């Protein structure tokens, strides 16, 4: 690996960290634009000046914003997200297993959706402008922007209520083994897969067609290369980078989708926690959840960029 390449990757990594840093400032500052402050929100109308002042000292609100930001970020870096306002529990404890549950759901969905989408995309390209392609295109165009709750409730109505194949609520507990866990998340998983599949498949198709219409593919055809080798030797190495991008962009969709899907299926993940605490206006929890979601999102995008840098021969072997 050349030093040039290492430098590019490090640059991208640094950019990711800077973005994350900037996002943390944005999230922190969002609390500052409140009319009044957190202490007032907690105590509401019944606040007396004395207990307001007490609470402010207790929460550290009497210190200047910069110092509070540094304290908050320092805590976050050590895994301390502060204390929830409503039930006085450490935020880290509230998030605890829920983060794992969310990752589990997203991961299983991704494992199903990504290969399926790429396969369908390849199939559509292989039979471009023939009926399989047209069928896939028409179906994905129809399903591309169905809301998660529509898909979710239709699945519940059909598979949980009418057919009674799967549970309608995805309750998981720490005592369940992997098989049981997978069993209860079949429907949320299917919903998530369904929601990202159309998008991912269409983007994959476009990416591969973009590569397939380049002059070097025509050259390979003129060299009498077999269709199999054209796709796997000539097209795929060049399509990897756009496909990685497609996958990551859609994993990001998945993160957003997870929030809604968890609410539909009452799944004990971070999305639910997030939504609950937005309505309760419990700021420390909201900030923590927002920061974690953002970190995953930024991390994924960074990963995509780094992979596409690594897969580009022009960058791997500079002149």
């Amino acid at each position, binding site marked *: 690996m050349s030093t040039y390449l290492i430098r590019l990757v490090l640059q991208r990594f640094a950019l990711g960290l800077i*973005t994350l840093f*900037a*996002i943390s400032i*944005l*999230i922190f500052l*969002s*609390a500052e*634009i*409140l009319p009044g402050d957190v202490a007032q929100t907690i105590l509401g109308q019944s606040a007396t000046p004395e207990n307001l002042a007490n609470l402010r000292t207790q929460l550290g609100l009497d210190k200047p914003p910069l110092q509070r930001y540094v304290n908050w970020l320092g805590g976050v870096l050590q895994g301390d997200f502060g204390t929830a306002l409503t039930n006085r529990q450490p935020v880290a404890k509230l998030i605890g297993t829920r983060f794992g549950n969310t990752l589990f759901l997203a991961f299983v969905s991704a494992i199903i959706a990504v290969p399926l989408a790429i396969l369908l995309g390849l199939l559509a390209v292989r039979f471009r402008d023939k009926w399989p392609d047209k069928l896939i295109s028409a179906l994905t*165009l*129809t399903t*591309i*922007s*169905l*809301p*998660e*709750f*529509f898909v979710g*409730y*239709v699945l*519940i*109505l059909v598979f949980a*209520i*009418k057919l009674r194949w799967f549970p*309608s609520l995805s309750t998981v507990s720490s005592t369940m083994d992997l098989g049981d866990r997978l069993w209860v998340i079949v429907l949320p998983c299917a919903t998530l897969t369904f929601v990202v599949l159309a998008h991912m498949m269409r983007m994959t198709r476009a990416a591969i067609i973009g590569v397939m219409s380049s002059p070097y593919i025509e050259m390979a055809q003129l060299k009498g290369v077999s269709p199999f080798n054209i796709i796997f030797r000539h097209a795929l190495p060049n399509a990897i980078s756009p496909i990685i991008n497609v996958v990551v962009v859609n994993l*990001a969709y998945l*993160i*957003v989708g997870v*929030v*809604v899907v968890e*609410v*539909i299926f009452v799944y004990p993940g971070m999305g639910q926690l*997030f*939504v609950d*605490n*937005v*309505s309760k*206006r*419990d*700021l420390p929890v*909201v*900030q923590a959840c*927002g920061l974690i*979601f*953002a970190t995953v*999102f*930024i991390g994924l*995008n960074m990963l995509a960029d780094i992979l596409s840098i690594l897969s580009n021969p022009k960058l791997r072997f500079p002149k």
Partner: protein
Amino acid sequence: MRLARAPLTAKLGLIIILFYILVALFGPFLAPHKQSDVVGSVWQPISKEFPLGTDNVGRDILSRMIYGTRTTLFIAFIATCLSFSWGILTGFFAAVSGGWIDQILSRWVDLLMAFPTLIFALVVLSIVPINMTTLILVMAILDSTRVFRIARALAADTVVMDFVEAARLRGEGTLWIIFREILPNTLTPLVAEYGLRFSFAVLFLSSLSFLGLGVQPPAADWGGMVRDNSLGITFGIAASLIPAAALAILTVSVNFVVDWLLDQTSSLRNQ
């Protein structure tokens, strides 16, 4: 771009969109009941009196659907118009100016887009009071980053053309270059993008309402109605699927029309 030769899907899509718009415009005249009036018992099935049945507290679903369409489309329309004017203006300005103005605007948008829209909206809505104005503003600001990207990319593609340089060399001002040289060449993809962003806005608003963080009761809107009636699903009552289906039909229709519009642009560009 001839409507007569448009594919069946696009024509169908346009007719459906027109229908929604009419319902939204004339909702109060069409609805048999007020949106928050309790007129029957809970979850009554479809009948002559209640063509779509009643909801979880016994309100007429048809009436609520009509009002909900009005509310949902209105908020999404205003938000998209705001995000579009702002996004196009800044996007074109960035592309035409180039240099540090472009850099600052682009990096700012990069930063906002490094964050999933829904997550950002949730963080903000945990702080500001939730009402129609804040919803519209939050949606418009978040969406304008996407419009900025598209507008900037379209304008940047056009700006490098020699005819824009020719106008510059002649001494034409920025406004002439934006409105007379660039805009006419980017209009169709922008109209298509408007359709797409509008359907996303409808979807986004409905998602927020579904989570209980959008339009506040007792006002009716699609996402809220799905939420209100979601408990019925477990009893096999499909009331919450009605607004969800209305939303699905609209977004699919918009997609059909947008797909046709984009097809037009790409074939124009290939010529």
